[in-house]
């Protein structure tokens, strides 16, 4: 692909700038036989917010990691501040003013916010190795400059996701930063917090830092980005100013073909569609309380799930959702209260890599793990491997898992693909109840669509459909799919009245006594 010299533009459409903050020239990176990036050009102008979009495996994170120094390109040139550079480590990148905020925050959970900032910026405050008393002030001043509302004295484990993210950003921006890379920063935030994050990003960009925003949600990218680049299967397919683009154009660029007009609008297909048959309850919790100390706990949670319904549970991450899921899945027993749960429960855990899959097992073995109890997958005392293999293959095809065969080890899959495997498998297992924790987080547009459709189809099945509990920090998802909605705030489950089932009312509820301040 010939390099296309793109005149840098500052966001306001001012005069073209001479020096790019960073420029990637014809970058190629392979992982084994897979070409993750194929001669990709990418340029960042000082002070711009640059949205980086693409489906799972399109190469967005790889690109960000190369610029962040975490991966080394196989071919191509990296320029930062007009000089050709070699980035061999995150340290190299940081020395050149490139900072990265990861999807999974790289904070030490038991350190305070201040300690985390200090750890990351060791050189800055080294006065004979001892924490200089003035550094604390510097951190506070910087936080104020950036309009970042941060809690510096509590262990970050005790903070909400939004607060942790702000510490992560502050930590990255303590030293001069030319380029700030953010990998999926909005995936975990409540709507109000997304607004707050964007305000901070605009502030940071206004000071001349170029920001790369890796994201899935098209609307959000269009709302905040000055320019957008779309990757598809390792190639750059589009770079354009955001004002000239629509969400639809972006989606089509990502998928690589015109989308049929059936992308259901918000609210369709789920809540307002079919009349809800009033089936028998399959699971119920009564005054369930779990957890003491600093673990996110459940307090007096009452809940009934009926067959054939999708119960949506919204809330900012870290308010007890994971514990609720664990109780519903039967892996944690309530300390107080009663739980009556069915036998055939499917569980899509939040951390699929750890809780959902045995990473050294093949895909087929991982599928077998979940299905070995079912008569259909056994022949006498033995497992029916051909049958399991078939099921695995179907699953792999249906959800478009990018993998050679079901015999591949689960470890070789990307995060998004691991998730597809777990999700598909648990659908098969959920005879009576499906507990889905953020089932589409980290999935691309197409897979998200597929998963959501399957949830609806599962709950709408004609004969004996299971009940579905959908736990998601993505409020749009909850609104789209759920028949009933409840919000988790600090371990309490608050039902949402029919009139309040809109983003503004629920968002306010999510933050009402939430663990994070907006």
């Amino acid at each position, binding site marked *: 692909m010939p390099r296309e010299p793109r005149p840098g533009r500052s966001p306001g459409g001012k005069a073209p700038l001479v020096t790019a903050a960073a420029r990637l020239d014809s970058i190629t990176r392979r992982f084994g036989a897979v070409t993750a990036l194929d001669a990709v050009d990418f340029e960042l102008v000082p002070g711009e917010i640059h949205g980086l979009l693409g489906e799972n495996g399109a190469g967005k994170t790889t690109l960000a990691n190369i610029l962040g120094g975490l991966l080394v390109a196989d071919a191509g040139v990296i320029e930062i501040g007009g000089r050709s550079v070699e980035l061999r*480590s*995150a*340290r190299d990148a*940081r020395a050149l003013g490139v900072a990265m905020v*990861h999807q999974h925050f*790289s*904070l*030490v*959970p*038991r*350190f305070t916010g201040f*300690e*985390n900032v*200090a*750890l*990351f910026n*060791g050189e800055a*405050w*080294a006065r004979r*190795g*001892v*924490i200089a008393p003035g550094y604390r002030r510097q951190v506070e001043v910087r936080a104020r400059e950036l309009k970042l509302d941060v809690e510096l004295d509590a262990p970050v484990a005790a903070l909400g996701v939004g607060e942790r993210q702000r510490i992560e950003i502050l930590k990255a921006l303590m030293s001069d930063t030319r380029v700030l890379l953010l990998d999926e920063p909005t995936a975990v935030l409540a709507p109000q917090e997304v607004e707050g994050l964007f305000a901070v990003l605009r502030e940071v960009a206004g000071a001349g830092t170029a920001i790369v925003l890796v994201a899935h949600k098209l609307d959000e990218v269009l709302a905040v980005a000055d320019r957008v680049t779309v990757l598809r299967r390792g190639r750059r397919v589009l770079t354009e100013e955001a004002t000239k683009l629509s969400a639809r154009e972006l989606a089509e660029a990502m998928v690589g073909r015109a989308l049929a007009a059936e992308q259901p609008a918000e609210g369709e297909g789920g809540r307002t569609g079919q009349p809800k048959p009033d089936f028998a309850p399959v699971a119920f919790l009564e005054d369930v309380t779990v957890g003491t*100390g*600093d673990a996110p706990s459940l307090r007096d949670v009452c809940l009934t799930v009926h067959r054939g319904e999708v119960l949506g549970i919204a809330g900012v991450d870290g308010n007890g959702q994971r514990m609720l899921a664990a109780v519903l899945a039967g892996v944690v027993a309530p300390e107080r209260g009663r739980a009556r749960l069915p036998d055939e429960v499917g569980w899509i855990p939040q951390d699929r890599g750890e809780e959902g899959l045995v990473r050294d097992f093949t895909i087929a073995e991982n599928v077998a793990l979940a299905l070995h109890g079912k008569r259909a997958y056994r022949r006498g005392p033995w497992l029916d491997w051909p049958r399991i293999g078939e099921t695995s293959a179907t699953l792999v095809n249906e959800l478009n898992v990018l993998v050679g065969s079901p015999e591949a080890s689960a470890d070789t899959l990307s995060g998004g693909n691991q998730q597809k495997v777990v999700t598909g498998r648990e659908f098969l297992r959920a005879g009576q109840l499906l507990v889905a924790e953020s089932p589409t987080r980290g999935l691309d547009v197409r897979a998200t669509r597929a998963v959501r459709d399957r949830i609806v189809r599962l709950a709408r099945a004609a004969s004996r459909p299971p009940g579905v509990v959908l736990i998601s920090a993505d409020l749009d998802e909850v609104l789209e799919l759920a028949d009933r909605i409840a919000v988790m705030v600090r371990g309490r489950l608050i039902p949402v009245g029919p009139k309040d089932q809109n983003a503004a009312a629920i968002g306010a509820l999510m933050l009402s006594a939430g663990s994070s301040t907006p």
Partner: protein
Amino acid sequence: MTDLAALSSFLVAAVGLAVPLALAALGETVSERSGVINIGLEGSVIWGALGGALGALAMGPYAGLAAGAVAGGLAALAFAAFAVRLGTDQIITGTAVTIGSLGFTGAVFQSRFGATGLALELQTVPAWEVPLLSRIPVLGPAFFEQAVTAYLAYAMVPLLGWFLFRTRWGLALRAAGESPEAAHAAGVPVVGTRMLAAVLGGAMAGLAGAHLSLVHTGTFAENMSAGKGFIAIAVVVLGRWRPWGVFAAALFFGGAEALQFTLQALDADLPYPLFLALPYVLSLAALAGWFGRSRAPEGLALPWPR
């Protein structure tokens, strides 16, 4: 014998027995804070005892102490080369180092001094009386009429506290133990940090071993470490990974051991081994969180890179 004199002699014994535990446990604290649980500590102690004995024969008792520290550090280096650098299982590697060390030191000793283990007489490290402080009734003689190793142990307590919680290297070291991923992302060389911490811990355990041969007994015997390295690991738990707590816990363990001897001497009608068991019961209770939350570093014993 008056009660006060009995108490005083009990305290002298308690502190004397606590010093090697404190040294080894403070070293292990540094190691565990960096994420390395060195079950091979016992190996460092026995190498320290032998190194101390050989060093003292060659160059006098103080050189012997230094040689003991070096020997203990080398044993920990062997452990860390596998468990940290190569990422082998820390528990299994540490156990291997301990068992191997007990065997090797015995072999070296026998090849040098004969299989019958001719009673070796070493010049011991003399006790120093600290002026004024040693005059404090009861406590003075216990704490301030000790050999230099005791004063080293005392000094290490505030020094390590300052190092771990006030310096950037301490911050980096604790980060490596809490979350190696985050430490790595922050530019901390996790492997190097852990190697250094383990070697430092081993050196202090070696010093503890040299204390056994050069202060406590004035001789070397096979297996003379007698589980001190393992006890030190329990001391770290009871001390909740904090230097002051670890020091207090070491005194407690030392006291329990001394009490046992005292009771034996007094011919008391009590099953004295019970007092030896007490500290372990308390350590288990500490691990179970009966004394409030005190958790091991989250990255403890986890290999890096994963």
